[in-house]
Each structure stands twice: as structure tokens, then as C-alpha cells.
């Protein structure tokens, strides 16, 4: 079942010891689930879930002109980021399609660009080659030397605070700082991909297993569960966050994905800007819509969507949503009319059409 070419994160042995179901993802053998997707989901929504995200690409960027250069490659603003700030962004191609989506962190001595594992090699080649990097900018792929442990859920602060002298309350949402966690050097970021409060801890690969075990031991009291990529996918879908390869890819622009808030068309020139300006001014493009199935059959990626009796697009992600009482939610890439909130549509499942309706994203928003 497994392929020898898949990489392992520093926590691979830990996952196996915990009895996780392992599966290839983005070139790595990753934990899909431990206790079960629904149990892990509940932990994240009500307590804390702990994820190994060490498969994600970690590129350190240093030198003169980093933000100005990154601004020529992405749709959101980089140069306006404040010290310590993290910002969601999208690298685009000339036609405005997404090469990858990313979070860029502005840390005291460097910039950190975190990319999807499945796009890591492509983005390394793009940044180091095609993207006209100035000679004053240096790139370092530290993925193999690093680990990334995410704590996500309302009790994350309660769990993590006793292990660090950094005042976690002083780290605002989408900010990061450097500090020690249980005696090891870390970049502590208040970011995530679940729709909950939480932290992402960037640490050295060699520190990962010990910190994971420490967090596990300390986490018992707050209901911590190790959580896999299965739960993560359900959590991000409920929170209306795109997954590359589903809601975004090289043929789907950030505008089509509904990420207009991250597209700064008044920014100086960037790759794909003209295509995006054209798309926005023409309008009428196919776009990502959120759907709730009216019946019990789940919608899955690839199923055909119909509006007014005619083919209107396809499902891009679909899952039962525990946060919505088990209702089946999905995203679909469909015509503008079919994407209008409250539109009645149909999803073809095994040859039969099942009714669904369009809702505004996200499906789930935490109470603050």
C-alpha cells in the first residue's frame, strides 16, 4: 500500500506508535486519523486537537527587497505587513490561476513562506527560477530540518501557556513571535486552518517528538486529541477555507474561489494582475459556491451539479459536517447564477439528482 518514495516527517514513528492510519499525502506518508475523524473534530471544536503539519513546505526568505519581490508574485499585499504579522496569500500565474496558496510570516530576522506539500517542489522551482528573484534575496528550504506542530481549539492557550514564557495573550490572531516552548526554540504563530483559535509551532525536526509527547501529557487535562488530515479537511471545509487542488488550482483564480478580499488589484504589477483585472471587469465567471444537501446522501468531489435542469459545474469538496449536525456540505465550481445564495440546485449522485441549496461561506464560524 505504501510507496518507498514517500517521505516521512520527524513524527512518523510517533504516529505509527499511536496507531494512526497512515496514507500518502503531498509526497509524505501522513496520519489521516487516530481515534476517528468525528472524535478528532469534536476535540478541535471543543478542546484542543494536535496536528503534525511537518509535510508543509517551509521556505525562509532573507535579504534586501523581500517584500517588494514577493509582492510581484502574489495577489495580497506583502510590503504592508507589520513586524510579526502573518498573512494569507496566493501565488498566481499569468492567467491569474493559483500556483499555490500560502501563509507568509514576517519574523524578526527573516520571512517565512509556508506552502502546500503537494506544491512544494513546484514553488521551490518557481521562486528560485522563473520568478526573477533579485540577487539580494536568499532562499532556504528548511522543510527537512523543521517540524510544524499545530494546536487548534478553544483550550489551546490554556494548554500551551504553562510551557512558554511568551505571553500568548499578546500574540494577536494572524501574528507570530519567536520564543521558547518547553525549552526548545520555536516560532509561535497564532494561525491555523480549522476555524478555531490556536497556534502553529515551527520547531527543529529533532525537537518534534519530545515536544509532541510533552504536549500529549499536558493535554490530557484539557481534552487534547492527536488529529489527522481527515479531521483537518472537514474542519477547513466547515470554516470555508480553500484546499489547493479543490477550490483553487492553476485554472481557478482567487476571484473564482471567492477570495476577493485577498486580491489587491490596486497593488503595483504582479504576475496575473492583468488577467484578474479582466476577469473582474467582465464578470460572469464560474465560481466556488457553498452547498448544503437537502437529503442524506453526501456530495463528493467530482459529482456533477445542475441548475434549472442544465449542467452548471461540479462538486470540488464534500463531507458531512459534524458542526452542522451532520448535514452534508460541499463546495462546487458553478456558473454565476447557480452560485447565488439560496439558489436551488441538484447534485447527481450515482445517476440520481439530489436537491441542494447554496449558502454563503463559511458554513461554520466560531463564537468569540
Amino acid at each position, binding site marked *: 500500500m505504501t510507496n518507498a518514495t514517500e517521505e516521512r516527517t520527524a513524527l512518523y514513528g510517533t504516529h505509527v506508535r499511536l496507531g494512526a492510519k497512515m496514507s500518502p499525502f503531498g509526497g509524505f506518508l501522513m496520519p489521516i486519523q487516530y481515534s476517528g475523524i468525528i472524535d478528532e473534530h469534536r476535540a478541535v471544536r471543543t478542546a484542543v486537537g494536535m496536528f503534525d503539519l511537518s509535510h508543509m513546505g517551509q521556505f525562509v526568505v532573507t535579504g534586501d527587497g523581500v517584500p517588494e519581490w514577493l509582492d510581484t508574485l502574489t495577489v495580497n499585499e506583502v510590503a504592508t505587513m507589520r513586524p510579526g504579522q502573518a498573512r494569507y496569500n496566493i501565488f498566481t500565474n499569468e492567467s491569474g490561476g493559483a500556483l499555490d496558496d500560502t501563509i507568509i510570516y514576517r519574523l524578526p530576522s527573516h520571512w517565512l513562506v509556508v506552502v502546500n506539500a503537494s506544491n512544494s517542489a513546484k514553488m521551490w522551482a518557481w521562486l528560485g527560477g522563473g520568478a526573477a528573484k533579485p540577487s539580494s534575496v536568499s532562499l532556504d528550504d528548511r522543510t527537512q530540518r523543521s517540524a510544524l506542530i499545530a494546536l487548534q481549539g478553544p483550550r489551546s492557550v490554556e494548554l500551551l501557556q504553562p510551557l512558554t514564557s511568551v505571553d500568548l495573550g499578546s500574540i494577536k490572531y494572524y501574528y507570530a513571535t519567536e520564543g521558547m516552548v518547553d525549552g526548545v526554540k520555536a516560532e509561535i504563530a497564532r494561525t491555523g486552518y480549522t476555524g478555531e483559535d490556536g497556534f502553529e509551532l515551527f520547531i527543529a525536526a529533532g525537537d518534534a517528538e519530545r515536544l509532541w509527547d510533552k504536549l500529549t501529557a499536558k493535554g490530557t487535562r484539557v481534552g487534547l486529541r492527536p488529529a489527522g488530515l*481527515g479531521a483537518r*479537511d472537514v474542519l477547513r471545509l466547515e470554516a470555508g477555507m480553500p484546499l489547493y487542488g479543490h477550490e483553487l488550482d492553476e485554472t481557478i483564480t482567487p476571484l473564482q474561489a471567492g477570495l476577493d478580499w485577498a486580491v489587491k488589484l490596486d497593488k503595483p504589477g504582479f504576475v496575473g494582475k492583468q488577467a484578474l483585472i479582466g476577469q473582474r471587469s467582465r464578470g460572469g465567471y464560474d465560481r466556488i459556491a457553498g452547498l448544503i444537501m437537502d437529503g*442524506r446522501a*453526501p456530495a463528493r468531489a467530482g459529482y456533477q451539479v445542475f441548475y434549472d435542469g442544465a449542467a452548471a459545474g461540479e462538486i470540488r469538496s464534500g463531507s*458531512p459536517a459534524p458542526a452542522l449536525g451532520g448535514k452534508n456540505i460541499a463546495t462546487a465550481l458553478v456558473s454565476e447564477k447557480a452560485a447565488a445564495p439560496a439558489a436551488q440546485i441538484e447534485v447527481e449522485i450515482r445517476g440520481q439528482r439530489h436537491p441542494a441549496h447554496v449558502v454563503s461561506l463559511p458554513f461554520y464560524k466560531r463564537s468569540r
Partner: protein
Amino acid sequence: MAQPTDRFYTKEHEWVKIDGASGVIGITEHAQSALGDIVYVELPKVGASLEQGKPIGVIESVKAVSDIYAPVSGTVTEVNSSVVDDPAKVNGDPFGDGWLVKIDVGDAGQAKQLLDAAAYDALVEAESH
């Protein structure tokens, strides 16, 4: 893992328990465990004809869609509506209350083509390595 010895198994992880002319069909403990949390079960209607080895329904977990195959041919006489209403019952008791359909068995001789408990044990053992 010891499988119940009172029934036969398919390589696709269904079981059938045959009692005279009638049979009960379900999925195995190994199958439910591999699927994870089951959220949706789609079963044939009473009166439907089943053909050995052909899909008769669908079981979906949070992430996966799996066909259910008929271990033997027959005609559906009863459908377990309680697992349709509460699919997690298949996780909880796949060999008992989590059964899927009851059938009139067309040809009990087809069971000879299935695995007995020991052979299925060996299959599961081999798959987990």
C-alpha cells in the same frame, strides 16, 4: 483477529450468514474499522434481485465511498432500516445489529466460492502487512 465461524466472507469484506434458504448480509469488523466513522448507508429495496459479486449498495464514511457487493445471489426480503437511520450502528456491531439486508438465497452452493473464517482471517492479516 478471530472472525465469527458461522458465516462466509468475501475478499471485499462482506459476510453472509446462511440458514437454509435465507441469508443475512453485512460488512466485517475489519471493513468498518478501515472505513472509520460511517455516515451514510444506501441499500437495495425489498424485492430487488442481487447477483453474486455485483454492487448492491453503498457505505460512506466521513471521507470514503465504498460499494457493497453481494456475497451470493438472491432476492432481498428485508432491509435494516435502523442502520440507514443510524449508520454508526455498522461501526458499533458489524456482525450483529449492524447487518444490512436479509435475502432469499438463490443458490446456496455459491457460498463455496467464498472464504471461511480462517481464510478471511489470513486475508485480513495479509492486508495489514
